[in-house]
C-alpha cells in the first residue's frame, strides 16, 4: 500500500509522523467540544445548588464499575501498542480485540444503567441536570462506539500484519476517550 500514498503523506518536515500529528489535532478539536460542554455544565451546576438532589439519583457504583472497565480496556490497548512495536500483528490484534470487548461491556453496562433510570422517570427532559447527564454521557458513548468500530478495522489489518503503526494512533484516541470519562465520572456521579 505504501506506493499508493501521495508523496505528501510520506514527508515529515516536523519529524512527527503525519498520522500521529493529525490525531493530536483531532484531539485538540475534541477537547474544545467536551471542554465547552463540561464548562457550561459546571457553571450551571454552581448556579443551581438544587441539582444536587437530582444528582443524588445517579448510580455511583455503576459509574465506578464502568470507569474500571474503560481503564482496563485502555491497558490492553497499551499492550497492543507494545506488541505492534515489536511487529507482532497477531498479538496486537488479539489485544485490540480485548479492548473492543471492554468497549462493548462499557456500552452494555451503560444501557442497563440508562434503562433503569429512564424507567424510574429520570429522562432527558426530567430536569436540566438530567439533560446534561444524557447529553454529556451520550456524546462520550458515541465516541466509544466510533472508536470501537475503527479499532475493529485496525485489528483486522494488524492481524494480517499490515498498517501496524495505526495501532498507536487508535491508542492515542482511546486514551482520550478514557480521559473524558475520567472527567465525566466525578462531575456527573460523585459530585452530589
Amino acid at each position: 500500500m505504501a506506493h499508493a500514498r501521495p508523496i505528501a503523506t510520506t514527508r515529515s518536515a516536523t519529524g512527527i509522523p503525519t498520522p500521529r500529528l493529525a490525531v493530536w489535532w483531532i484531539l485538540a478539536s475534541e477537547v474544545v467540544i467536551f471542554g465547552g460542554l463540561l464548562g457550561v455544565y459546571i457553571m450551571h451546576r454552581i448556579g443551581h445548588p438544587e441539582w444536587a438532589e437530582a444528582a443524588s439519583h445517579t448510580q455511583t457504583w455503576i459509574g465506578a464499575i464502568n470507569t474500571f472497565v474503560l481503564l482496563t480496556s485502555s491497558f490492553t490497548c497499551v499492550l497492543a501498542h507494545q506488541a505492534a512495536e515489536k511487529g507482532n500483528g497477531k498479538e496486537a490484534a488479539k489485544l485490540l480485540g480485548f479492548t473492543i470487548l471492554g468497549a462493548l461491556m462499557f456500552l452494555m453496562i451503560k444501557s442497563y444503567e440508562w434503562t433503569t433510570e429512564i424507567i424510574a422517570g429520570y429522562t432527558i427532559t426530567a430536569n436540566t441536570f438530567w439533560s446534561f447527564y444524557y447529553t454529556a454521557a451520550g456524546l462520550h458513548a458515541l465516541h466509544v462506539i466510533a472508536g470501537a468500530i475503527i479499532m475493529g478495522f485496525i485489528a483486522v489489518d494488524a492481524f494480517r500484519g499490515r498498517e501496524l503503526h495505526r495501532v498507536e494512533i487508535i491508542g492515542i484516541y482511546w486514551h482520550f476517550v478514557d480521559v473524558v470519562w475520567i472527567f465525566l465520572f466525578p462531575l456527573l456521579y460523585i459530585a452530589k
Partner: protein
Amino acid sequence: MADTVADVHQHEAHGHGDHHHDQSWVSKYLLSTDHKIIGMQYMFTGMFMAVIGGYMAYVFRMQLAFPGISVPGFGQVSPGEYNALITNHGSIMIFWVAMPVLIAAFGNFLIPLMIGADDMVFPRINRLSFQVFFLSSVVLLISLFVEGGGFGGAWTSYPPLSASGDYNQTELGATLWLSAVALEFVAFLLGGINFITTLMNSRAPGMKAYDIPLVCWMIVIASILFMLSVGPLIAGAVMLLFDQTLNTGFYDPARGGDPILWQHLFWFFGHPEVYVVLLPAIGITVDVMATFARKKIFGYKMVLYTAVATGVLSFFVWAHHQFIAGIDPRMANVFTITTLLISVPIAEMLFVMIATLYGGSIRLTTPMLWALAFMAEFLIGGVTGIFLGASGADIYFHDTYFVLAHFHYTFFPIAIIGSFCAFTYWFPKMFGKMMNDTLGKIHFWGTIIPFNFIFIPLFVLGMGGQHRRIYNFQHFPEIAGPEYFQLRQLATIALLVMLAFQLVFFYNVIMSWMRGEKAGKNPWKANTLEWTTESPPPHGNWPVDELPTVYRGPYEYGHPDREEDYWPQNLPG
C-alpha cells in the same frame, strides 16, 4: 472504494505523463481525491451558493425599498418569508460562500502547490470533507422549502426564538437549518486538520517556516482558529437541537436553562469566525500586492506575528456582541478594551500593505485593483468597528443599520473582494488561460462603486436609529420619513446595478476559459512554487522526480544582484 483510490495512485506512480484517459468522468471530476479538483468543487459550489445569497439580498432589498410590491422573480414577500430570506442570506454568505471559497477552495488549490507537494496528506479525508459540505448545502436548500418555510431566526439563531417551533413557526426549517450548519462545521474540521498537517509536514525540501507564502500561513492559522472556537458551539448546537426536538430546557430559564448561554457559545465562535475568513483574505491580498508592486513584503514576520496575535485576541472579544443582552457592565468594560485592542494588529497589517506598496513598481492589473480595493474598503469596516466596540456608543447603535453597514464593510471586502482578487490572480494557473483584463476592470468598477452606494446610505440610516430587523417601515410612521425611504431606495438600486455587473464576470470567466490567451507557466512573473509547473497543473502537480526544492523566501522581487526582477523560490544559487 479504497481499492479504486489505490489503483489511481498506482497508475500515477507507474505512468506519469498520460493523464488518466482511462478514468471515467465521474471518478475524475466527482469522486476525485486530487486537491485541485476538490478545490474547484468547493469553488463552484460556493459560487452557486453566492448566486442564491445574492438573489435573496435582491428580494428583501426590493421589499425594503418598495414595501408590498410583487418582486419580479419572487412575488409578494410575506413577513415569514422576509425573515427566512435575511436569515439564510447571512448563513449562506458566511458558511457557504466565504468559508468554502476563501478557505476550502483556495486552501485546497494553493497549499499543496505552494509548498511543493503533490497532494494533501489525506486525499480521501479531503474528498469526504467536500462530500459532507455538499450534503450540508443540500440540507440547507431543502430547509427553505419544507412545511412552514425556511428558518427565520437570524443567522445568530438566538433562543428562545430558535429553540421552539411554537415561537419561530418553522419547526422543521429550524432543525434542518441547524443540522446543515453542524454538517458544515464537520466538513471544515475535516478539511482544517488536512490543511494544518499538510503545511506542517509536507513542505518541499528546504522550505523553512519563513519561506512559506503568507496565504498558506493565513489559511492554516484560520483553520486552527476555527477548530479551537467551534467546539463549544458544536456542544451548544447539540443542546439547541435537543431543545428543538426532544423538548429539553437547556436554554429555557423556566427549567433551569439560560438563553444568554447560547449567545456566549455562539459568539465565542462567531467572533473568531470573522478572523477565520479575514486572515485568508489578508494573505491573498498581501501575496498579490507583492507580485504587482514587484517588491518584497515590507514585514513578512510582522504579518505572521500580528495574525497570531489577532487569533489569540479574537477569543477574548466575543461579548461585544452582547452589550445590551444584560451582561454585567464591568464585563462590558473588559470586552470594550479587548475589542479596541484587536484593531491594533489588524491596523499593523494594513500598514504593512501600505509600506509594501511604497516605492514599488505598481502594475494596476485586475487582481491588483481588487487587492487595493480590499485595503480601502476594509479600512472603513474596521474604523466603524471602533464605534461598535465601545460599549457606550454600541448601546445606541446596536441592531441598527449602522451595525449592518459595518459588518458588510468587513465581510464584503473579505468574502467578495478577497475572492475576486484570488480568483483573477490564480485563474491562469487554474485553467491555463488569461482572463480578459478590460472586462475584468469593467467588472471591478461595476462592483466597487455600487457597493459603496449600497452601504454608505445604510450607515446614515443606522445613525438615524433605523432598526435592522423591520419588515416594512411603513408600519412605523415615526421612523419612516421620506428622506429615509429615498436612502433605502438608493441602496436597493445600487444593489441591482452591482448584481447586473456580475454578469460581466460570468461572461468573462466563460469566454476566457473557452478562448482566452494561453497563460504559460508564470504569466505574472511571480516567485512562489505554483508558478513553476504547467497551467493547469497535471495530476501530481509536478513529475515525480521533479518535485521542487526551495532555496529562498517567497517574495524576493527586485533583488539588486539579479537581472530579472523576480527570483523564484526553486532556483538554486
